[in-house]
């Protein structure tokens, strides 16, 4: 199976990994969580969302959990996704990479103020 492009990790895929870091979510839940964590800047459409989910599933970075585990009746019909150990590790590496980048930016005085 050829790999979809996850290297470099696209922003949408990274945001999905982050959204699943706290809890298991279905598609709409992921979309809302991503919108929330980006301050409404990133609103994932169905195409981008499920295309990214498929890539992440193929790479075993997230996994689909058994619908029987889900609690209420409405969630029963939906697929729920969970972050895998590999996904958590990848998200951490990506975050570290961005932190490195941030350090450089800070050293070069690109950033103003003390909010970082």
């Amino acid at each position: 199976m050829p790999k979809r492009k996850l290297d470099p990790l696209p922003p949408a895929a990274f945001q999905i990994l982050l959204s699943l870091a706290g809890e298991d979510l279905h598609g709409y839940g992921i979309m809302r969580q991503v919108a929330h964590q980006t301050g409404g800047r990133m609103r994932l459409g169905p195409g981008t969302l499920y295309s990214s989910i498929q890539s992440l599933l193929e790479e075993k970075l997230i996994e689909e959990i058994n619908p029987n585990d889900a609690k209420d009746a409405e969630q029963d019909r939906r697929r729920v996704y969970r972050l895998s150990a590999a996904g958590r590790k990848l998200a951490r590496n990506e975050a570290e990479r961005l932190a490195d980048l941030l350090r450089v930016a800070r050293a070069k005085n690109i950033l103003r103020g003390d909010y970082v």
Partner: protein
Amino acid sequence: MSEKVYAWLLSFFPAHFREAYGKEALQLFRDRWRGERGLFLRLRLWGDLLADLAISIPREYCFARARLGGECAGSQFAAIPGFHVLRDDRIHPTSLLVGSVLAAAALGGLAVLSSVGTGRLGEAPSVALKRSVDSSHGPVRTVALSQGRGVPDTPAEKVFNAWLLAFNSGSPSAMQSFSKLYDPREKMSRFVTPRFRTETGGFEVLSETSPEPTFIHFCIKEMKGPTRGLGSMRVNPTPIPTVAMFNMDEIPRGAVITEIKLNAAERHRIIEGSIANLNEYYVSPKVAQQIANALTAHEKNGDDNAETDGGFFAEMLTAQMQAVSHDGHLHLVYKPYKTPEGASVGPSPEERAHYMEAMKRNSCSFEEVRVLPHNVGYLKLNAFPDVDVCRSKVEDVMKSFRHADAIIFDLRDNRGGDPHMVTLMCSYLFHHRTHLNDIYDRHENATEEFWTTPIRSNTLADKPAYVLTSSNTFSGAEEFSNDLKNLKRATLIGETTAGGAYIWCRNAA
């Protein structure tokens, strides 16, 4: 209504996506439609959806195409044509019909063209050959010329020319064919590899003499650089001559080649000199004495009498010494040249510059550096180069594994090198200063200790390490494997290594 419009838009996605996520996508639309009310939010929703469709649909088609193409390519044998289905919809019968007609027309056209063009195509190689003959003049005889000379005079020349042709072509299959036909006993295996071809760029012949039909003596020069090599080959006088002996060595710059004829007195002098050196310098006096006894016994038996070629005589004595010592580092080397007067010990500035350039050319012997799936760092290192020349390269490579969860050192083609480089590479695997091993010089009664140096912001010290070995793994690469094994710092995987732990170099007159 809106839902129907969106459902219709979804039908533009490829079938595989619709099947897997069509329902989910529609559900997401419903959720957002319910959640985002009011004119502004609805307009924004449609804007989001249309932008999303514009990006996702082409991407899904591209992916479907790459996947189908990739799977076909993976299962296909090289050079056999095949059809790749790029769409995952069912193929329409009309398409099959049109395809068949086009294929038949193309094949027919090709058949007509090939029958018309045979004569013209047949002429092409001889034109090319003539041109290469014209462009080569002077004492340098190029390979194209030797090819154009027709049938070589002696069996030795025939095999030598066949080697050059196969080697210079750079084609691994041509090299394999050569080895299979002329070198079944793998006497030249080191000199018939694509890697050696890449390092040298091929060879041109400076001179060759074939004093006997089964013997050839030659001087060649690498095409990528100024290095010259001197060697000889002996072949078996079978209908298809096969290589019986082959040797070739690099000539240092400025060296003057001398003609040496071996006779009984000269052979005796070499054996005596070797024994004296062994007794004085070899790390184990006991083994030195055993080797000396073996050499003397062979001489008394008359085993050495027939050999008049210096290179082959040196090889014969090397085999006799290794049979007793099992020490892959113990060699008697034949050097039919004199280095210029006052030549200092160690490389000259030019040799150093040449070495640095060569290292730059082949990435300090790193054949491959990449991060494998599951975040495993992999490096294939084919020598341990001079630490002063290659330190920054090693630093770059190891830095690229900063986030790796494990590291694999592939030393299957590593023939060793600088022990200080071994220490530097090992240093990445330890937090603290660690004693690796010692080198003991018996003549000076001196011991050099090798310790790792802690490396700043190194993340590999506590990561699992694996070393891949083979029967080619030799010398410094064995030391690296052995150090890590003894310190329980790495898992060794592969064949038993070649066996060369003693380092010993002594020039005889």
